[in-house]
């Protein structure tokens, strides 16, 4: 990964003097990082590497041990036909895959954008002092707290065109002129999934942003108050820059989750081409179809795509890795 250039390690002039304090801290840092690194290496290292390895083989789940190395075949291979035409096969030319990539990216960006904005609004509300704030905070977390497998089904129930409460509500309130088959039609399937996802994960965003808001020193708001800064301006000029780090991590993790979205779609619209995402496709190939290697290749490519988008985001969002240290 080209992260070295991301300003991670500001080039510190080589110091002759490495003080004990620095050393002690470096030692402590090492000591502190080791448990984490070991934990991650064990829990993630082997499965990840294995998965990547399988993407270069012809493995099938019925016969993993007999997997043979086939190089990039799962990604791209070609065949020269008798007529001289070249036929490309493999993941890189699989229209289903690219459709899924497009679906995923579209889904991820839309949902995260909405969640960030709504999450910010909710966080700001929760940050205000008012009676019953504790209960409201708990209430707001409920969507996130309900297990996805339940809430997804609950929503599919609520989104049902015949006995779904949303259609009923929409009709009663005059928002809908006729009952809509939300998850059935390709036009609304994505919208339905987005609605549910936004409903479900806004609390995650809101809570993280709230934590960020709480860490902002209060006295500068007093200064702003004196400066006569309008609340809106206060938000954009003070709050936003200062919660930015928290907002950025919240977005990163939401983005990672959204790009790997699986369970929600799997329950709501499992096989609609309009919402099929990379993860759903990967699962299908890994377990349902007898294409473990192909599924592994999808996972690997999914990983690369996410990595690319994340790096792009970190770079564009100028997420900093430094500061705070002495």
């Amino acid at each position, binding site marked *: *990964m080209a*992260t*070295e250039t991301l*300003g*991670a390690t500001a080039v*510190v002039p080589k110091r002759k003097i490495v003080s004990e304090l620095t050393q*002690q*801290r*470096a030692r*402590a*840092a090492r000591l*502190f*990082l080791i448990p984490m690194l070991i*934990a*991650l290496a*064990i*829990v*993630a290292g*082997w499965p*990840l590497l294995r*998965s990547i390895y399988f993407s270069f083989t012809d493995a099938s789940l019925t016969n993993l041990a007999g997997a043979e190395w086939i190089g990039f075949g799962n990604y791209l291979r070609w065949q020269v036909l008798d007529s001289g035409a070249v036929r490309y096969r493999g993941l890189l030319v699989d229209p289903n895959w690219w459709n899924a990539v497009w679906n995923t990216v579209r889904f991820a960006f839309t949902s995260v954008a909405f969640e960030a904005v709504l999450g910010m609004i909710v966080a700001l*509300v929760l940050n205000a002092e008012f009676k019953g704030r504790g*209960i409201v905070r708990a*209430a*707001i*977390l*409920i*969507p*996130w*707290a*309900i*297990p996805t*497998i*339940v809430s997804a089904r*609950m*929503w599919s129930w609520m989104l049902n065109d015949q*006995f779904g*409460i949303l259609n009923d509500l929409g009709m009663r309130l005059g928002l809908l002129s006729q009952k809509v088959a939300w998850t059935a039609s390709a036009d609304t399937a994505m919208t339905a999934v987005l609605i549910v996802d936004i*409903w479900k994960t806004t*609390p995650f965003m809101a809570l993280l942003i709230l934590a*960020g808001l709480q*860490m*902002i*020193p209060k*006295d500068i708001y007093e200064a702003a108050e004196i400066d006569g800064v309008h609340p809106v301006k206060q938000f954009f000029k003070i709050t936003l820059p200062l919660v930015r780090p*928290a907002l*950025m*991590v919240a977005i990163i*993790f939401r983005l990672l989750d959204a790009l*790997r979205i*699986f369970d929600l779609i799997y329950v709501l619209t499992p096989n609609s081409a309009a919402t099929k995402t990379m993860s759903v496709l*990967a699962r299908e190939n890994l377990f349902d179809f007898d294409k473990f290697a192909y599924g592994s290749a999808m996972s690997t490519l*999914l*990983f690369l795509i*996410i990595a690319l988008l994340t790096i792009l985001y970190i770079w564009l969002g100028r997420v900093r*890795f430094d*500061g*705070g*240290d*002495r």
Partner: protein
Amino acid sequence: MTASFDLWKFTKWVLFYLLVAFIVVVSVFPFYYAVLTSFKSGTALFQINYWPTSFSLNNYWNVLNTGSFPRNLLNSIFVSSVTVLLALFIAITASFALSRVRFRGRGLLLMTILGISMFPQMAVLAGLFELIRFMGIYNTPWALIFSYTIFTLPFTVWVLTTFMRDLPVEIEEAAIVDGATPWVIITRVFMPLMWPALVTTGLLAFIGAWNEFLFALTFTSSNDTRTVPVAIALLSGSTQYEIPWGNIMAASVIVTVPLVILVLVFQRKIVSGLTAGGVKG
């Protein structure tokens, strides 16, 4: 004070509470609907109601009496708590290193940690499964605790790192002069100042572990070791195609309540101004 001033204040107050009400309604409505549903059974399930029409605790009774739901609840509590405590413990120390000590490759390390969160869960399922069997912890809570670190740890490390970066350097320096070791600085100086972040990440990670389904299903194979989401998925109607909505909703209500309590208890720690008064400048 003029009347219009009052009016404006009042309007603001009203608008604010309207917003709060709106947010609460949107968040809670499906849950409310779930609660309603949990009191219903049979065909009533397919009828739309906005207010409770019937009230029966049958579904709750069913859930608590069939299978080993109470046991699953305890499992979930155990697994989630241990996962979160472990993750927070490892993460808070690691984030100290990542946020407060300058060393080469820090950015790269952070990205690598993040990278682990970039792989789809399904893809690591097979490998993790082998690993867990190899370690001999298959079908124990440890299998879940172990596998959950894959998603809790990067998250907690990143969030805590971000928050720890913002703590004033001066306070840390004062502690250094007072002779505090990094460990003391973390536990006695930084942690109390990071309550909002700790509680938030703790809660989010807890809920993540609490609701995890795929690993829990794959790495356990008996009713006594399973967690609540799996137990809910295992709730079933009398026949294959029948989904026992009433029971599922009752179960969901049951599993959501501890979380709500948890939030109510811990949200007190999400307060602002913890660093106020410490430094000037």
